[in-house]
C-alpha cells in the first residue's frame, strides 16, 4: 500500500514531461510532447482532432498521412485551464483540422484557449487570452493577459501584443538569456517532488 503514497498528482514520463492527473487529454496517441513539458490540472488538449485532408507536400501519395495533431517543444508550460485545440477549416472542399505546432520554452497562462497554427520558441502567452484559429505566433512574442488574437493573424518575432482584438503594442527588449521565460525554474517547481523556486 506504500505505492499509493508515492503516486502523486502528476504523471512523469520518461522524457520528463509532467502531466497532471486532472488534465483532460484526448487522443494522446496524436500528441508529441517535446520533453520536460508541464501540463497542469484542467488543461484540455484535443489530440483527437486530427488532420483528415492529405498533406499537400506529400504528393507522392505513398506516405501515410501524419496523424500528429499537436506537437510541442521542450520546456513548454501549460497553466491551469488551458485549452489546446487544433484549428480546422475547409480545404479543397473538405473540412479538416490542421496540426498545431508549438516551439520550445513556450508559456501559456491560465484559461487561455489556443487554436493557433504555430507558436514559436520562447513565446509567452498571458492568462485569459484567446488565440484565434490559424494564428501564427513567431519567436519570442509576448501576448499580454486578456488579449484576443484574431484568426489568421501573424505576429512577427519579438513583438508584444495586447487588446481585443490584439494589436502589436511594442517590442520585446533585446537581451535575456536562453531561458528568459524562466521555464526551467518553473519546471522544477511542479510535479511530485517540487523543488524550491529560488534557483
Amino acid at each position, binding site marked *: 500500500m506504500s*505505492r*499509493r503514497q508515492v*503516486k502523486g498528482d502528476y504523471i512523469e514520463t520518461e522524457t520528463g514531461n509532467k502531466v497532471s492527473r486532472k488534465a*483532460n487529454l*484526448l*487522443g494522446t496517441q496524436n500528441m508529441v510532447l517535446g520533453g520536460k513539458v508541464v501540463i497542469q490540472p484542467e488543461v*484540455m488538449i*484535443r489530440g*483527437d*482532432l*486530427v488532420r*483528415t485532408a492529405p498533406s499537400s507536400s506529400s504528393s507522392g501519395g505513398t506516405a501515410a498521412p501524419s496523424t500528429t495533431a499537436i506537437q510541442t517543444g521542450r520546456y513548454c508550460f501549460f497553466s491551469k485551464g488551458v*485549452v489546446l*485545440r487544433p484549428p*480546422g477549416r*475547409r480545404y479543397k472542399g*473538405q*473540412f*479538416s*483540422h490542421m496540426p498545431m505546432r508549438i516551439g520550445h520554452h513556450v508559456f501559456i497562462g491560465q*484559461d487561455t*484557449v489556443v*487554436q493557433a497554427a504555430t507558436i514559436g520558441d520562447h513565446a509567452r502567452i498571458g492568462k*485569459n487570452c*484567446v488565440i484565434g484559429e490559424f494564428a501564427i505566433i513567431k519567436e519570442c512574442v509576448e501576448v499580454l493577459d486578456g488579449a*484576443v488574437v484574431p484568426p489568421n493573424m501573424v505576429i512577427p518575432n519579438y513583438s508584444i501584443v495586447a487588446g*481585443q482584438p490584439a494589436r502589436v503594442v511594442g517590442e520585446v527588449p533585446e537581451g535575456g538569456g536562453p531561458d528568459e521565460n524562466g521555464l526551467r525554474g518553473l519546471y522544477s517547481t511542479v510535479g511530485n517532488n517540487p523543488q524550491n523556486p529560488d534557483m
Partner: protein
Amino acid sequence: MSTAKRQSTVPAGPKPPVNFSSTVTIPKDAVLQGTHSITIQSETLIHPRARLDSNLGSILIGRRSIVQERAQIGVEPQNIDTAIRGGVSLGDYVVVEVNAVIEAGGTEIGDGSVVQVGSRIGSGAKIGETVVLSNGQQRADKRLADARKLGTLKQINVVRKMIRNDQDKFK
C-alpha cells in the same frame, strides 16, 4: 488500482430527461444535469466536457449545431435582478465555441449564430440569425448563410467520426 476511488468525477445530480435524435453525437464525458428536459435534434454534435444544465429550464438544441468543449449551456444567471425564468433554446446550425457560457432564462439563439470563445450570453437574451459574438461585442456575419451552413455541416461530418458517440449513457 485506484479505479474504485476515482469513479465519480461528476457529482451525482439528477439525471435529466433527454430527448435525442438518433443522429446526435454526444460523447460520454459530456455533462448533462438538471431536472427539466434536454432536447437535441438531428445531426448535432456535442464535444467532450460540454456542460448542459437544465436545472432552471428546459434546453433545446436545434439541428446540425455544434457545442464545443467546456461550453456551458443553461447556467445560473450572473445578475439575479435581471434574470428571467425559463430555459435555453438554440436554433439550427448554431456553433457554441470553447468556454462560452449561455445563461438560462428564456435565452434564444437564432439559426446560424456563432457564440465565440469565452463569450457569455445573459439571461433572456434573444439573438437573431447569423450573429457572431466575441467578448461582449456582436457583428453580423458577412459570409453567405448557405456557404456557412455548408461549412458547419462538413465540419460535423468530419468531427463526428472522431468523437465516440455514447448516447445511451444519458438515457
